[in-house]
C-alpha cells in the first residue's frame, strides 16, 4: 500500500509540473507552482526528510506565492511576451530534455547498494554537540561554515534587490499594497493568525535542537506572519534605511561570526564549540538567526523600495 501511495503522489507531482509548463495564464501557472510546492512537502516526508519537508512547506507555500503572484500581477500590463520559438526548435528542445530525463532516470535506476553514507559518522559525534537532531548538527556544527556563508548570501541577495530601487525611492519603503487590497476581513485574519504563528515559530526554533525543525523553518514562519500584517495594513512596512531593521538583519550572522571567532580561543578552531557549552551556544545562534532570517526573507519577498515614507 505504501508503494501505491508513492506512485500516486509521483504521478500527481509530475502531472502538476507538466501542467504548470503548458498552461497559458501566468497567474494560474504561479498558483500551480505553489500547489506543487505544498505537495512536495508530502514527498519529502516520504523520503524520511522531515526537516526538509518543514522547509519546503514554509518557503514553498506562502512566501514564494506572495513574491511570484505580486510579480505576475505587475507584469500583466507590460508586454513581457518575448518571441516564441518556432515549432521544429521546440520539438528538438523537447527531445533533448527527454534525453536528459532518460539519462537521469538511468542513473537513478543503476545506483548500486550499499550506498555511500555519512549517517554513522554524524551519529557518532552527535554527543559532542549536545544536539539530538543530526540535521541540525550538520547545519550548525559539522558544516557550520556553509550555514554562515548561506546567511551572507541571503544578505547579498537582499542588497541586490534593494539596489534595483528607482532613484526616487532610494532608502524608501517597499510597497506591498499592490498585492491585496486591504479589507476588514483580511485585517481580522492578520490579527488572529500571527499570535499562533509566532508561538509556532518559537516552538520550531526551540525544538530544532532535538527534533526536526530549526532556525530556517521558524524564521520563515515569522517572515510569513510579518508579511501578513504588512499586507493587511495592520503594521506599516518599514523604511529600508531604518537602523533597527538593519541591526535585525545582521544580528544572526554577527552572533554566528562572534561565536565562531571565540571558538579559535576557547575551542579547537574557527566555528568549533567547547563541548560543555555547545548546545547553549548553538541554540543562541539559532535564535538570533531565526530573527535575522525572518527579516531577510520578509524583505526579499517585499521587493525593492518603491516610494518614500509618508510624513
Amino acid at each position, binding site marked *: *500500500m*505504501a508503494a*501505491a*501511495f508513492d506512485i*500516486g*503522489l509521483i504521478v*500527481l507531482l509530475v*502531472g*502538476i509540473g507538466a*501542467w504548470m509548463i503548458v*498552461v497559458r495564464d501566468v*497567474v*494560474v501557472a*504561479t*498558483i*500551480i507552482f*505553489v*500547489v506543487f510546492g*505544498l*505537495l512536495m*512537502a*508530502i514527498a519529502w*516526508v*516520504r523520503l*524520511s526528510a*522531515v526537516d526538509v*519537508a*518543514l522547509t519546503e*512547506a*514554509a518557503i514553498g*507555500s*506562502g512566501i514564494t*506565492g*506572495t513574491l511570484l*503572484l*505580486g510579480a*505576475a*500581477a505587475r507584469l*500583466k500590463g507590460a508586454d513581457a511576451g518575448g518571441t516564441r520559438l518556432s515549432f521544429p526548435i521546440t520539438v528538438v528542445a523537447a527531445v533533448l530534455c527527454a534525453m536528459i530525463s532518460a539519462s537521469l532516470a538511468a542513473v537513478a535506476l543503476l545506483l548500486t547498494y550499499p550506498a555511500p553514507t555519512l549517517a554513522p559518522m554524524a551519529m557518532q559525534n552527535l554527543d559532542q554537540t549536545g544536539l539530538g537532531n543530526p540535521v541540525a548538527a550538520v547545519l550548525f556544527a559539522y558544516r557550520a561554515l556553509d550555514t554562515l556563508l548561506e546567511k551572507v548570501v541571503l544578505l547579498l541577495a537582499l542588497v541586490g534587490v534593494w539596489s534595483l530601487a528607482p532613484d526616487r525611492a532610494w532608502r524608501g519603503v517597499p510597497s506591498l499594497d499592490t*498585492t*491585496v*487590497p486591504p479589507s476588514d476581513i*483580511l485585517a481580522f*485574519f492578520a490579527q488572529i*493568525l500571527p499570535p*499562533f*504563528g509566532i508561538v*509556532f515559530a518559537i516552538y*520550531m526554533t526551540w*525544538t530544532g535542537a532535538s*527534533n*526536526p*525543525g530549526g532556525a530556517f*523553518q521558524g524564521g520563515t*514562519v515569522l517572515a*510569513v506572519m510579518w*508579511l*501578513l500584517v504588512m*499586507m493587511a495594513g495592520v503594521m506599516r512596512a518599514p523604511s529600508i534605511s531604518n537602523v533597527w531593521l538593519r541591526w535585525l538583519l545582521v544580528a544572526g550572522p554577527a552572533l554566528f561570526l562572534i561565536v565562531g571567532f571565540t571558538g579559535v580561543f576557547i575551542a579547537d578552531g574557527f566555528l568549533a564549540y567547547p563541548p560543555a557549552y555547545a548546545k547553549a551556544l548553538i541554540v543562541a545562534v539559532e535564535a538570533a538567526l531565526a530573527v535575522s532570517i525572518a527579516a531577510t526573507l520578509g524583505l526579499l519577498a517585499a521587493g525593492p523600495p518603491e516610494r518614500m515614507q509618508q510624513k
Partner: protein
Amino acid sequence: MPEFLFGAALFILGTIAVGLVRILYSRQAADCMMAAQLIGTGGVAILLLLAVATDTPPIVDVALMLALLAAFASVAFVGGLQGKASAQAEDHRK
C-alpha cells in the same frame, strides 16, 4: 493498521487530485483561489495519516505548518486573482 492508513491516505490523495483538476481547469478565476484551501485540508489529512502509519510524530509538525501557511497562500492567491475575478463577475452580470 499501517496498511489501512496508507490506503486512506492514497484515497484522499485521489480526491485532492480530482478536485485540483476541477479547480485549476476552470475558466473562473475564483475557482483557482480555492486550490490552497484544498491542499490545506486534504494535504494535512494525508500528513496526519502518514505520521501515524510510519510512527513518526514530527510529521504532525509538518501538518501544523501546512495548516498554518496554506491559509496565507490563499491570501496571496486572492490577491493575485482579485482584479480578474471581479472583472469576470461584472461580465457575468451583464
